[in-house]
């Protein structure tokens, strides 16, 4: 039986009161409740405050470059589909620098989970606007106000992601449930997590989100598998912000093609140079 204590990692270097702490807690709880051992997990992160998370829990860790969490995560998943692969990063990392990988990872429906700590601001570089900053956000790099924000949930649905959800670090129990559902989902699963930045975002605070956030499951009647409805729901923002699974569908995953190899992980297959002999004959 796996305990939360099995996931005790290094001491975080985040600011006191940071929204990341409860995301870390929710992740550890979800992994323990799924009875996954640390060695069965691979966490791949980019660069930014969120991307430091894997060091603060336990598991296999590939802390990659800025914006490049998804590509190595996918490579590792294809090499060994037995691994539970979780990519982790922030909004600047995933939706800015890594935007192209985000679109195409969703499109190909790779069987990995992507947690994006969305604090609508750059933390590590100290307070610049991010791709998800509210329109008109004034920072040192956007003195005239930032442009319209990118909608990650809508983008993910449009690109073909098969599990799209929003969590809130102010509600770690709910988030734990989402993470468990995302890991259990076969296909590309995104959880965009509202994560207040106590140092650089004084607008989108815990209190600001609490006033607006509501759970889709409590609203009643919402159909997670209705893509058109999901695209409308994904655009709800401002007075009311929905939390929970916005869209979920069963679709073939990219990794299904690994079944042609008899289901055995590539990393477990032996190397036999002699097998090339039949190909040599094709050139004679």
């Amino acid at each position, binding site marked *: 039986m796996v305990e939360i204590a099995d996931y005790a990692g290094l001491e975080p270097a985040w600011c006191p009161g940071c929204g990341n702490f409860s995301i870390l807690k929710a992740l550890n709880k979800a992994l323990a409740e799924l009875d996954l051992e640390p060695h069965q997990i691979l966490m791949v992160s980019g660069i930014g405050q969120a991307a430091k998370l894997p060091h603060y829990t336990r598991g296999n860790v590939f802390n990659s470059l800025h914006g490049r969490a998804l590509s190595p995560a996918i490579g590792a*998943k294809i*090499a060994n589909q037995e*691994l539970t692969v979780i990519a982790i990063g922030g909004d600047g990392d995933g939706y800015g620098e890594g935007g192209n990988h985000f679109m195409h990872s969703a499109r190909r429906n790779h069987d990995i989970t992507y947690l994006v700590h969305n604090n609508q601001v750059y933390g590590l570089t100290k307070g610049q606007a991010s791709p998800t900053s509210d329109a008109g956000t004034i920072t040192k790099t956007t003195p005239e106000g930032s442009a319209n924000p990118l909608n990650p949930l809508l983008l993910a649905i449009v690109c073909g992601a098969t599990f799209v959800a929003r969590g809130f670090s102010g509600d770690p129990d709910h988030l734990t449930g989402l993470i468990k559902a995302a890991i259990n989902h076969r296909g590309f699963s995104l959880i965009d997590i509202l994560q207040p930045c106590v140092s650089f975002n004084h607008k989108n605070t815990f209190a600001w989100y609490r006033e607006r956030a509501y759970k889709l499951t409590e609203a009643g009647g919402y159909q997670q598998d209705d893509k058109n409805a999901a695209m409308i729901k994904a655009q709800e923002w401002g007075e009311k912000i929905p939390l929970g699974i916005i869209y979920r569908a069963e679709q073939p995953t990219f990794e299904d093609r690994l079944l042609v190899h008899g289901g055995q992980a590539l990393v477990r297959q032996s190397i036999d140079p002699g097998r090339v002999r039949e190909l040599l004959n094709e050139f004679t």
Partner: protein
Amino acid sequence: MPDDFNFIVGGEAGQGVQSLGFLLAKVFVRGGYHVFADQDYESRVRGGHNFFRVRVKKGEVSAISETVDMLIALNDETIERHRGELSAKGAAVFNNEKSTFGGDKRFFGLPLEKLAKENVGNIVMSNTVALGAALALVDYPFDNIAKVITEFFSNGKVALDNVAAAKAGYDYIRSQPRGDFPQSLAPLAEAKRMLINGNEALALGALAAGCKFMSAYPMTPATSIMQYLAAQEKKFGLVMVHVEDEIAAVNMAIGASYAGVRAMTATSGSGFCLMVEGLGLAGITETPLVIVNAQRPGPACGLPTRTEQGDLQFVLHAHHGEFPRAVLAPATAASAFWTAVKAFNWADKYQLPVVILTDHHLASSYYTVEPFDLAGVTIDRGLLYAEEESAGAYQRHALTKSGVSPRAFPGLSKSLVVTDSDEHDEWGHLTEDANMRTEQVRKRMRKLVSLHQDIAPPLRYGPEGAEITLVGWGSTYGAIHEAFSILQKEGASINMLHLEDLWPFPTEPVFDTLSRAKKSICIESNATGQLARLIRTETGLKPSCDILRYDGRPITPAYIAAAVRKECR
């Protein structure tokens, strides 16, 4: 029977120049000849002027010739452009339906489209009619031709039609007066050699080495590597992912390699520009990685379908900061196979990125090679972590004397494999500690010391102490070696030094040869003499002069020989 016979097949893109040229080459390889064939084509799908050169020799050959013995012209432009290259005894086969040529008695016109239409009902096979005609002119037995055509086309009906098309061209020429063309090429002893281009050989090497993963984005001239491996997915248990860009390509391959499989990517120069970021990631995370850079002329889009050796200094220095890497430049298709095997072994053994530097000329030219001896392929996965006395003790970046830390693969044991693009401690967790930073830099760079002992010395030919030393690297090998032979036969005191293992630099053997050379001439397909600069940096010796070509065309033996004669007059 001539010992050196050159065909040029020319026409528009879409006229079947490539398949005609390939079949022609295949016919002679089957007939026991050695063939070298290269392709010259424009960056377009239809139209323009494309040609395929097929050089046929009794002995080994790995360079093109500038003289033509037979021109197979699918359009008039081919005649206009290449007429001047015909040797004194040279002949031409051309389509007389639309042509104004024919005055020359060694220009054999025939109605290609009419013959194709009459015999197989399809003018698409005009190229095969021309193949039959050309081979009739050199008296090649038709049965041998038919056999090769039949095997080339997997579809039975298409094969039969193409044999009939070739026969129509063959018989047409045989029924005509022979004119003034006495040259014939009869089959030699049957041989089972391969006709293979550099990309195919490299891809086969990767398969033999156990490459299980490739991620790539199409870019000329590297694309056929990814296509070849993609076609082998099911049979060989590997995955080739056509990704969204070269940044994803390099990072995905790094992820697969971290997870324990042999992984590669392939691109050309400007794709490599995008991969540079990942090169350093492989460096600091000590993840094995094989990257092929099949060069083409730059900068930016440059000349997309042509050749150059302009990226040497770039790949040696690409990325910021300092970390060990290896750079290998195979000289021929056979060498490309073995270089791929070596690259995967080095990547695993030293846990670093290995760049295989080829170019359009090597990638797309066909070489005649003996089937690779697969018994000679060794697999060295490097130092692996011995399980499992205490699962919590594994340090991915343990400080070791050799600099190589044992690898464990995530998920295959209870050991946790942690690594970071930030500077990290032995455990792989990020650190800013000054001592640990110094120790980790030293550890990584120490790997070069052992790697240096693995590098092969340059190829050397000719007597020591010669008056002239020719120096080159990579795909220019065939041309330089042939120029060396020509000049030696003319009585020149000459030797030759050719580099394939470029980094770590083979300082001692290069210094040894060049410090005794009276006049050293560096021959490169670039504008600035990049190998010459490397030699100066690493040995302190300055080559006497250089022969450079950077018009996007492959350097030829005649080009080199003429320049050497001029240089040394």
